[in-house]
């Protein structure tokens, strides 16, 4: 009898490592919005050799990493209500202009969290319908339809170990068919017209084990890479 490998046996990326891996994929010169959750961590691990301009819904463009302890400014936060710093060239503007940038198609890329993503790129990330946990849409629907590209950063499975990449979202949608890439703590997956294509996996994982925690059918890219990030 042969042992079957499972996703439980491999070391998943930490949230910071996942943010780092996704940040390395952001093209130089992009205007990028970082959503609540893992995406906000990207601001602290951006590639040093690129100029990537970060946008925040609350009226900030061109911000940098979190401030050093003691340097926090209560007037300077991101959309996740975390303290940030400004970079030279940054700008402040009214909230409605922040969404002119989003809906008007001026933001190149939105990195968002997700409750679920479907094989066709449907995104669900604003409500579970549970009255104990009020819904919170924030800017997610605007970003989902307005940004030129949407990438999702999320754990591959729920706390119960169930797939978050599903055939059909059971939670209410944020937007249908908008997600182009999914970065998880196990893999990097492209959403293509021909289905989900695995571009990278963590060390020691194989397609069969990844498929076991993913509902839609996966295909392996010919140049699939090992997903590794600094601790």
């Amino acid at each position, binding site marked *: 009898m042969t042992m079957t490998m499972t996703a439980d046996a491999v070391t998943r990326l930490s949230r910071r490592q996942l943010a780092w891996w996704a940040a390395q994929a952001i093209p130089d010169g992009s205007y990028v919005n970082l959503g609540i959750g893992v995406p906000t961590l990207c601001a602290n691990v951006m590639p040093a050799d690129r100029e990537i301009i970060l946008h*925040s*819904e*609350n*009226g*900030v463009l061109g911000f940098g990493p979190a401030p050093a302890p003691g340097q926090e*400014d*209560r*007037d*300077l*936060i*991101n*959309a996740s*209500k975390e303290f940030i710093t*400004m970079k030279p060239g940054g700008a*402040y*503007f*009214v*909230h*409605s202009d*922040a*969404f002119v940038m*989003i*809906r008007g198609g001026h933001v190149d890329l939105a990195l968002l969290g997700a409750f679920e993503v479907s094989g066709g790129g449907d995104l669900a990330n604003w*409500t579970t319908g549970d*009255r*104990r*946990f*009020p*819904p*919170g*849409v*924030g*800017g*997610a*629907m*605007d970003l989902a*339809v*307005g940004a030129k590209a949407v990438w999702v950063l999320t754990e591959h499975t729920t706390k119960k170990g169930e797939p978050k990449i599903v055939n059909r979202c059971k939670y*209410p*949608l*944020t*937007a*249908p068919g908008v997600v182009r890439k999914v970065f998880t703590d196990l893999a990097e997956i492209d959403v293509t017209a021909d289905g989900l294509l695995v571009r990278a996996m963590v060390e020691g994982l194989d397609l069969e084990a990844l498929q076991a925690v993913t509902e839609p059918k996966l295909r392996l890219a010919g140049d699939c890479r090992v997903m590794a990030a600094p601790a």
Partner: protein
Amino acid sequence: MAIDKIVPTLEAAVAGVADGMTIMISGFGFAGVPNDLIEAVLHTGATGLTVISNNAGTGTEGLAALVGSGRVKRIICSYPRSKGSDHFDSRYAAGEIELELVPQGTLSERMRAAGAGIGAFYCPTGVGTELAAGKEVRNIGGRDYVLELPLRADIALIQAEKADRWGNLTYSKSARNFAPVMAMAANLTVVQARHIVPLEAMDPETIVTPSIFVDRVVHVNNDRQWDI
């Protein structure tokens, strides 16, 4: 006659707040929230209020205190639940507060439309989702849009960095957020400003909210640490 919109007290700033009014409150997270004006509204005892704000308050003071007081019957916002939003969460769970959840960009654009005299607008956000349920959808140039209506208020409470006696305003960093569009969208715009400066000290090139949108200014610059 010299125009002077500066009022001496918080009480005078919120005079006229009454039961059943709709109140816009600036701020995003803890930045730019006019906590002193909110507390002054709480002191008026006005009830049955509708509040329009991005969030629903965190901690025990400011908007959270107003929500927790039970005087807010309805809140229109994009992101009510945050770390520390216990006052809202428990009232929502108990069915004691109505929530109209609005996508964030639609929220500020509806305010802008109200301020700009626009009757309605077609917006791509939310198409095909529960938040567009029951709204008119129209295909324009091959893309679907949802009809959104203006959002107006009786009073807007906003926070600014600098103000002059005419009501010209500048803001501080991300504390600007919703304040300029709320100032346009209310029948009465009330400002708490950290600094009052002479007209001559305001640079016309850098005024963010021109005085025409402002009705009252009260000077509030204290070191109070709000639990928010």
